[in-house]
């Protein structure tokens, strides 16, 4: 198990290096000049040159990438100007390791941006996750056990509707009617859990419902399909024949077997969401990681783009790893064999 973890973690690091390197290379292969975004329309060549130098865009890509990597390990100072550091140390921003970079358009370190954004994304993701797992898996079980009867039809029908409605549509409808027109729930604003847990949840209900809708729908269908499959297995018939209790069979023998693929999907979905629920965050103006990513792309804020790509891919890669480890516990058939 230990060697397995080390090997997997090493591959995670390699993957992240490759992803960030590719992002850097792609960004610089584009015909856009990032320095131009910092200069006005009445920009003179000398100002443009000055900005480019101040932002480090004048250096070759591999040097910039090297500085980014070393910043992750030892931290960095901004602006990277020895003269200014000597004359005006008060103007230097120190970004401690692991330094993700500095955003010239927001005049602050990306670490501080991420520090503010991740609690928002995690709050949205976890709340929605709990909601859709309960509704989705529960609904799926009920539908499977009543296969072909009216509860099944209703649940599957609702799931189909939920799945067909785009997130931005559900979000906008909820925001416009429930929050703005009826005032039934607050217009979502992020309130830290530590400050006021009730307000935290109260404010996030709408984003949770929005996000949970589409996921719950797919989990209903997923759970239903796997439950139907496992419930028709021979060992279930054996258990029934032995006279075991109905719920014991459903939960211990049926659900447990059906759970493996569901956990895989859930882990990956949650991992993706921890990196930001772009549409939900945008609709409700919640400044999580997804929102930060979108705004960095529109502003051509290179350092933020690279950092966001890295964070999102890190979540997905790590979620994958956790799912693989979790298999061992959920499904006794999956075991690491020391070869």
């Amino acid at each position, binding site marked *: 198990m230990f060697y397995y973890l080390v090997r997997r973690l090493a591959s995670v690091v390699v993957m992240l290096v490759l992803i960030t390197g590719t992002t850097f290379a792609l960004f610089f292969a584009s015909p*856009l*000049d990032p320095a131009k975004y910092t200069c*006005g329309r*009445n920009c003179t060549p*000398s100002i443009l040159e000055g900005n480019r130098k101040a932002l480090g865009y004048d250096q070759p890509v591999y040097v910039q990438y090297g500085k980014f990597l070393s910043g992750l390990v030892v931290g960095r100072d901004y602006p990277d100007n020895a003269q200014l550091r000597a004359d005006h140390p008060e103007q230097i921003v120190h970004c401690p390791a692991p330094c993700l970079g500095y955003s010239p358009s927001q*005049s602050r370190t990306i670490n501080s941006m991420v520090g503010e954004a991740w609690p928002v994304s995690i709050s949205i993701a976890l709340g929605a996750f709990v909601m859709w797992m309960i509704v989705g898996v529960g609904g799926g079980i009920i539908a499977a056990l009543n296969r072909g009867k009216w509860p099944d039809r209703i649940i599957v029908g609702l799931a189909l509707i939920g799945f067909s409605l785009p997130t931005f549509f559900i979000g906008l409808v909820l925001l416009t009617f429930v929050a703005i027109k009826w005032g039934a729930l607050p*217009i979502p604003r992020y309130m830290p859990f530590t400050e006021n847990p009730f307000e935290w949840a109260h404010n996030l209900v709408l984003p949770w419902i929005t996000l949970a809708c589409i996921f719950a729908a797919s989990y209903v269908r997923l759970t239903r399909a796997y439950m139907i499959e496992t419930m028709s297995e021979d060992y279930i018939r054996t258990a029934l024949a032995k006279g075991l209790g109905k719920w014991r069979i459903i939960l211990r023998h049926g659900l447990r077997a059906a759970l493996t693929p569901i956990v895989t999907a859930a882990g990956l979905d949650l991992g993706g969401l921890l990196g930001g629920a772009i549409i939900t965050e*945008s609709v409700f103006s919640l400044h999580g990681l997804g929102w930060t990513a979108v705004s960095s792309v529109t502003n051509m804020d290179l350092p933020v783009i690279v950092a966001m790509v890295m964070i999102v891919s890190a979540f997905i890669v790590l979620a994958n790893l956790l799912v693989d480890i979790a298999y061992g516990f959920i499904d006794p058939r999956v075991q690491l064999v020391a070869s």
Partner: protein
Amino acid sequence: MKRRSFIAGLATTAVLATISACGSSSSTSGSSSAAAATGTKGGTLYVLSGTATEHWDPQRVYVGVNIEYGNRMFTRTLVSWGPVTSDTEVAKLAADLATDTGKVSEDGKTWTFTLKDGVKWEDGKDITADDVKYGVSRTFAVDVITGGPNYAIAFLDIPDDPAGGSAYKGPYAKTGQDLYDKAVTVSGKSITFKLKQSVMDFNNTVTMTAFAPFRQDKDLGDKSNYQIFSNGPYKLEGMWTAEKGGTFVRNDQWSEATDTIRKAYPDKVIWDESLTPETLYERLIADQGTDKNAITYDPAPTTALANVTTASGRNSIVASPYTRYLVPNYKSKVMSNDKARQALALATDRSAYVTAAGGSQVAVATNSLINPNLPAFPNTPLPAGEKGDPAKAKELLQASGLTLPVKISVTYRKRDDLDKAFAGLKLGWDAAGFETELVAIPAKTYYSTLQAPESASKYDVYWAGWGADYPSASTVIPPLFDSRINVTAGGPGQDYGYFADPEFHAKIDAANKIADMTAREKAWGDLDKDLTSKYYACIPLIDDKFVFVHGSNVQGVFVNGTYTGYYDMATAWVKQ
């Protein structure tokens, strides 16, 4: 003025694309009918914003919204623009930190301002002339203090260094500090600016917050970007968070007696910029809860326009500061022909543009480059009505010596409504004997494409847009059509069409030297007429309009078109 034009580009996209949806709405402003005089102190005002503030550092601010809000709240300037009592009133120049609107020498090259007594920073220290001098010096640190206007560099009597740029490198590097100390001198409470050339409206220039004081001991370079250190009626409570906003509370060091501009009615102002224009307009129109106490600086987006009229009595439909125009390229064989340019102007069907933009409520055909918000607006009549006269244009083109059909390639900034507008314009031009090729260029690279030297040999006509930096046409005519300050080996600058005429240059110099404001602005207006009706170096198309909505409890809030074209906080108050 890219910053402002760019933002406006986004905003007007929305405005232009839709007001067709509320085509029957009345174009008069609702908020101007509210009484202004009876404001009461107290309450909390909310600013709902869908636009992230790039800078609050006074020397880096270049967006109209931030110039105006900053000035009204916490960045007083030597001279500013007075408040207005209706959306259409023309604001007057008003002394702010200075005792008057400045004293100018006979030759227009030396300006002196004297600070009032009793003006203080939020920590209680007096604002000194040295603070103003230090503030202006920061503009020269172009590698740290980015984004702001360059007027200090352009106007102050400091030589250029051979590599380009000013020989003074700002207060951090200190290179050329002696040159700056000679150009800007302080004596007691007075500060004197020595200029390279005669600038008779320099007291308009200093209304930009780039000429505001800045305390040296509070200067943290780029780290100062959002660190608001107030000398106005409000100060920041806690921190400013980019893309979220901040809360402003009363600054007890501000003395109302020193201030004839700001009424400072609300006790608190909360700026929330975590929103999108679409949702904030939904909220403003729904007018629920604290949104009743809210204003916005974002013009209404497409989605909101149909509902704007339901917010009657609390909406403003006003001329935006932006004018859209066409520039013939003098380096192209066709457009260097005088008759061809005239034919193009005559065959230009502005009604097609207005229709594509969304109708007369959002766009007005114009034949003046100078915006109607400016005193210099010459209101030049259209050469042949809104529709143009292709038949007459064809006669001119036939007499030009060019072979018909005359091929021209016209660029515009890619956007749905402009696609339609230019399809309409093309019909008129082609009817006059042109064979028009339309080239749509993506928005983010549009102006840099125009400014690239190689474009001179590729295109014949360019679309462009402009808004004045301050209400003097000296920020319109010279920046756009004085080749001496624009054209270099590196490209045309903002004189996209390489228009250069010695007689025109002489008239610019003459206008700059006129001391009387009315006479000077009239001279700029005459130059505008020359451009559009004598040289045909510019074919104005339309003036945009902006639509704003505010909450029902907000009173005394008017669009100050002279200053920046947004709601003026100076007189805003909240009904309790």
